[in-house]
Every structure is written in C-alpha cells, then in structure tokens.
C-alpha cells in the first residue's frame, strides 16, 4: 500500500500551519493533467479494481469490459476538471482520484444495467456465471466456498452489495465508499454491517 503523503499548509485561522493529507495519486494525476499520455499510469494502476467492481455489478465479462472502457475514457477526457479534495479524515492512503474514478464507474455500470434491463433477452442473472471466476481454483471444496460466497453476495440488495464489494474486493475505506456512493460514513457502515448479516444467514442456510 502506498505511503500517505502530507504537506504543510498555512491556516492562520487555525493557529498556523498544519499537516494536510494528500491524495496518494496526486503526482500521477498532475502528470496526466499536464500530459494526457501520462494517464496510462493511472489506468494500469486501477484497471483491475474498476473491472472487478464492474464484473461484480454486471456479472458478465463483456459488459464489465464495456463499463470499464467507458469509465477510463470518461476519466481521461474529464481529468482536467478533477480537483483533489482529500481530507485528513479520509484516512491513510485515501485517494480522492480513486473515489472520483469509481463515481464514474458507478455511473457507467448503472447505464449498462439500464440498457440490459431494456433487453430482456440478456438478463443479468443469466449473464452471471461463477464458473469462470472459480475455474482457477483446483481444490473442489475451495471452489464450492468461492462459488457460495459469490452467489451470496450476488443475492444482496444493490446498495448493500455495492458497499460490500468496494470494502472487500476494492479494499476501500468507509470514507472512500461514502464518497463513491454519495452516502454518509455512518450510513455506509450500517450498509456493510447489514450486508454481512445477510451473507452470514445466506451461507448458514442449509437449503442454499
């Protein structure tokens, strides 16, 4: 994990200079804003995270690729308008660029889902296949566990699933998830807690 970055800022109204937490992607973002060709570093860094998020949401590799492509194209073309807004409360390693990028991803995924709902011949449930996800697992028991976790998460209501994926798969802080979902940190904590309870009941249910 990247080290957090700090800088001194003069805040006379707060009794002089103090340390302010900076976006850990600040250097990469500034370089890309100065020269769009340097955006590739940010793209390589976050590709898998954005793609994972899209795949958990859409449950189809092609749809996830489409949403990922839209996300990065939108991020590149709008990067000049991005402003860093990291706060100390965002915690170690908080990245406002990452929050901004995932806000774009969330919109791209939502648009794909709307399109898929309008096309009943390609329903989300049918598109999702856990087989591809667990084929890499050789151990059959382990494969079952992964498949069960995947299915349980897939059965969660949208907002709970989204929060859980951002927490466990993308390993975001509560503050970052709150930024992505446009909710308060308290609301995100409750969402995740309830999501865990739902998954726990699901996994403990012998009929599943």
């Amino acid at each position, binding site marked *: 994990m990247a080290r957090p970055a700090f800088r001194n800022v003069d805040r006379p109204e707060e009794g002089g200079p103090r340390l302010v937490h900076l976006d850990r992607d600040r250097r990469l973002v500034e370089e890309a804003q100065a020269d769009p060709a340097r955006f590739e570093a940010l793209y390589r860094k976050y590709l*898998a995270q954005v793609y994972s998020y899209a795949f958990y949401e859409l449950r189809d590799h092609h749809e996830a690729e489409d949403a990922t492509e839209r996300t990065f194209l939108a991020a590149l073309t709008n990067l000049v308008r991005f402003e860093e807004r990291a706060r100390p409360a965002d915690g170690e390693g908080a990245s406002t660029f990452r929050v901004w990028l995932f806000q774009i991803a969330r919109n791209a995924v939502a648009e794909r889902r709307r399109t898929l709902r309008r096309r009943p011949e390609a329903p989300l449930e049918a598109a999702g296949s856990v087989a591809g996800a667990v084929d890499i697992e050789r151990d059959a028991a382990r494969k079952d566990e992964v498949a069960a976790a995947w299915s349980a998460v897939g059965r969660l209501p949208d907002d709970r699933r989204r929060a859980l994926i951002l927490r466990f798969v993308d390993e975001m802080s509560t503050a970052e998830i709150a930024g992505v979902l446009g909710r308060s940190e308290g609301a995100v904590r409750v969402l995740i807690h309830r999501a865990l309870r739902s998954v726990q009941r699901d996994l403990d249910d012998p009929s599943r």
Partner: protein
Amino acid sequence: MTGATPGRDGHEVEALVTDRYLEALLAAHARGADRGPTPRDPDDALRRTADRLARDLPRFHPSFVFEEALAARLGSVASRMRMPAAAGAEGLIVPLPVGDPGDGPGGSGRRPLLIGGALTSAALSLAGAAYVAWRLNRPAAGPMVRAARAVARTRPV
C-alpha cells in the same frame, strides 16, 4: 474514530464495531498476516463471515488483449487531446469575404470560417490560415471567376 457514542442506536454501534474489525482484518490481509487485534470484536458469526469474504471473494482482471486494446485507445485519445495545445488548433475564426478579394473591400456580406478545431491538426490549421492570407492578396483569375464577375457587373445593384 471512537467507540459507542451515547445517542446512537444499537445498529450504528454494532456497525461501528464491525467497521473497526474490518479495518484490522483487511489491513492484516494486505500485509499477508492474520487479523490484527481489535479493541472490541463483533460476534463470532459475523467475524467468520467477514473472514470468509475477505478470503473467498475473488478479484478479477480483464484479459491481456482487452487491457492492451484499451491502453491503445486511451493513448490515441490522449494524443488527440494534446493537439489543442498546439498553436491554432483550438479553433481560429477568420473572416472570409464572400466575394472575390479582387472585388475590393466593398464586397457584399462576410461569413466566418472556422479553421482548426478538434478534428483538424495544428498543421492543417496553419495551412488554412496561410491559404486565406494568400487568397486575400491574390485575385482569382480563373475563367469561371471572370465569367461570374462579368455577369455580376451586368446586374443592377
């Protein structure tokens, strides 16, 4: 972050405890170690579920082909984005006389001509500006132009 705060309902307090546990759990996973100590853990069932999700939820990576194709596309978009920084490519409006420059400054009406912009390169923009300047200083002498001028002269103003 603090523990239970008076006034919060039970769900929020439980959620806060779970959140603190997840912080330690995911940080430990990132270090490749067992979970770190937490001041107050959630109940066993919830902890087991969190441990299991941290271990079992797969991460996905797109295909190498997709990754490289998108990288190439982003590179192409990036290079087009760099062009506006070049002189003239941001769009240059040049007043162009409707009539032939040789008709003199009293030519009827003028309309703007956009040279450059997102779809043209800086080189094209400069070439366009040079062409306009050249045309302003050089009367056209083609037979069609001469015929059109002759017709125009015969018409009443």
